[in-house]
């Protein structure tokens, strides 16, 4: 799309777009091309010998039980993060939307975890769930009598990083849900109330369906967050351990590439992630387009 009324200038538009193109080409296209090239090569850690091996890196990747395990962990991890943070965010937003007078105050009290870095969120929860010093860990062991040791038990460790990652997304989801609920026409709610629909019925029959576009958007954003932005949580809290129980895909790329120096495999893993996020983005754009048509 372009304006009807435009400026005529031969050089200026190129100069204006140049910085963006330069930065994008240097730090996006060139590295991406390099990544594709490396994923088709086998090279030793010093980069002395390169050999073209077609898709062997990818085949090796998808037959590697560790990588398949990492895919499984990532799916469980991101689904849990999305489920916990969306249900909490939706619940609190529903309550806040009923509190007619103090919405802004409540929003202020809930919005700031958004600004906390994932890595710091990890540190806070590491302290809360620390097997010897954590107060929540103590609660789990003493009152729920569930044995808790995230240092040794993989499931406990996974639960810990899920909580730490989901916590800060609650406020992000909350902001979207509250805004979404506030944009639902009040007349709709009133009409339903006059027909005798109870507040619960109104929630299921009106609020939730009207929120479905927001819900979809938030789910996509949460999954992207859980896939990529949670690197900081994993790095500070578990470093992928114990025994690879929290080694999500993005952390595995880093570990194999920077610590294991297995460039070909790491590049192949990057390409897999890239394809994945392209699919998600395309899906989201399809949805956005549909929504634009819907609203006219």
């Amino acid at each position, binding site marked *: *799309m372009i*304006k009807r009324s435009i400026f005529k200038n031969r050089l*200026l538009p190129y100069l204006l777009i140049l910085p963006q193109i330069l*930065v994008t080409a240097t730090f996006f296209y060139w590295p991406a091309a390099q990544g594709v090239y490396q994923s088709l090569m086998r090279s030793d850690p010093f980069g002395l010998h390169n050999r073209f091996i077609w898709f062997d890196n990818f085949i090796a990747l998808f037959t590697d039980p560790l990588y398949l395990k990492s895919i499984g962990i990532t799916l469980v991890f991101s689904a849990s993060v999305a489920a916990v943070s969306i249900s*909490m965010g939706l619940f609190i937003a529903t309550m806040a939307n009923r509190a007619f007078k103090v919405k802004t105050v409540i929003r202020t009290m809930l919005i700031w975890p958004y600004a906390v870095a994932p890595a710091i969120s990890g540190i806070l929860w590491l302290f809360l769930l620390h097997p010897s010093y954590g107060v929540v860990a103590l609660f789990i062991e003493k009152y729920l009598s569930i044995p808790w040791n995230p240092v040794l038990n993989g499931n406990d460790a996974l639960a810990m990083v899920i909580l730490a990652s989901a916590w800060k997304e609650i406020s992000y989801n909350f902001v979207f849900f509250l805004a979404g609920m506030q944009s639902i026409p009040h007349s709709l709610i009133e009409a339903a109330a006059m027909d005798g629909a109870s507040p619960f019925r109104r929630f299921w029959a009106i609020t939730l369906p009207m929120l479905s576009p927001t819900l979809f958007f938030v789910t996509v954003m949460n999954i992207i967050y859980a896939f990529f932005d949670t690197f900081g949580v994993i790095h500070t809290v578990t470093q992928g351990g114990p025994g690879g129980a929290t080694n999500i895909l993005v952390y595995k790329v880093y570990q194999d590439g920077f610590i294991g120096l297995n460039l070909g495999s790491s590049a192949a893993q*990057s390409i897999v992630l890239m394809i994945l996020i392209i699919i998600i983005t395309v899906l989201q754009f399809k949805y956005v387009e549909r929504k634009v048509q819907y609203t006219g």
Partner: protein
Amino acid sequence: MVEKTPILDTFTYVFLMLGILVVGFPIIYAIIAATLPLDQVSRVPMPMIPGDQLLANLREAWQRGDLGTQLMNSFIMASGITFGKIVVSMLGAFSIVYFDYRFRTVAFVTVFCTLMLPVEVRILPTYEMAANLLGPLQPLWKFLHIDSIISWFAGHDIKVSLELSLLDTYTGLILPLVASATCTFLFRQFFLTVPEELCEAAKMDGASAMTFFTRILLPLSKTNIAALIVIEFVYGWNQYLWPLLITTNPKMTTAVIGLQNLIPQADDLPEWNVAMAAALIVMLPPILVVLFMQRWFVKGLVDPEK
């Protein structure tokens, strides 16, 4: 009018308070821990009454973590990313929306293909790129035999290797993260909603493209810029993977990365009070930005979705 539901309203407020408490608990707990001396913070469970050691713990955290330097680095990185992204993308969007030229569609597609592709999926090659910015030119250099040409001129053998490393520099921390299409996309969407008449009137008055940009478009974009400042500052401050890779010198690390060294490990003294004090210091700047600019922030966060 919707019916009155006093019982449900009471429940609403109770659950709301509970929700706020649950969400706020990690921070409240961290604040209390940061005020306690070592012997109390390592008691299980830790006392929930704040102590008087807050200042001592903050000072200890500040010195041990070298937070002065690292907060400065974080600040430079976050503001650099914010400023860079906004300038680069505003100019780009202006070029795409207000001019018609041959490569317009190509430029548009080139930029928008990078939408939402985070640095996390292309870490290794981007790192190699940053380690030697001139790397891609090396084959060209070889191909053109510039070495031998120079050697011939100089009369003796000269080997030139092109190297320009961004490791451990502010440029290296900032520049690769400026490459993002999100802001350009937002500005493009906004420019498209600016009435045509404004541009026509400006042209009729003889304004050049840049005059129109600085005198009309820039003031109109104030709210969008404010919203993006909040979002991008928080994004920049909280970056983890990229600064972890690109900096090896502790003097160049950011505060969020530096915190890792203050977490008590199994054999250390359990100085969680110092760790929590440091965490509080490091998380404060982006929280303040979000709270003080909440109105624009919420607008910027929620609106593009619409």
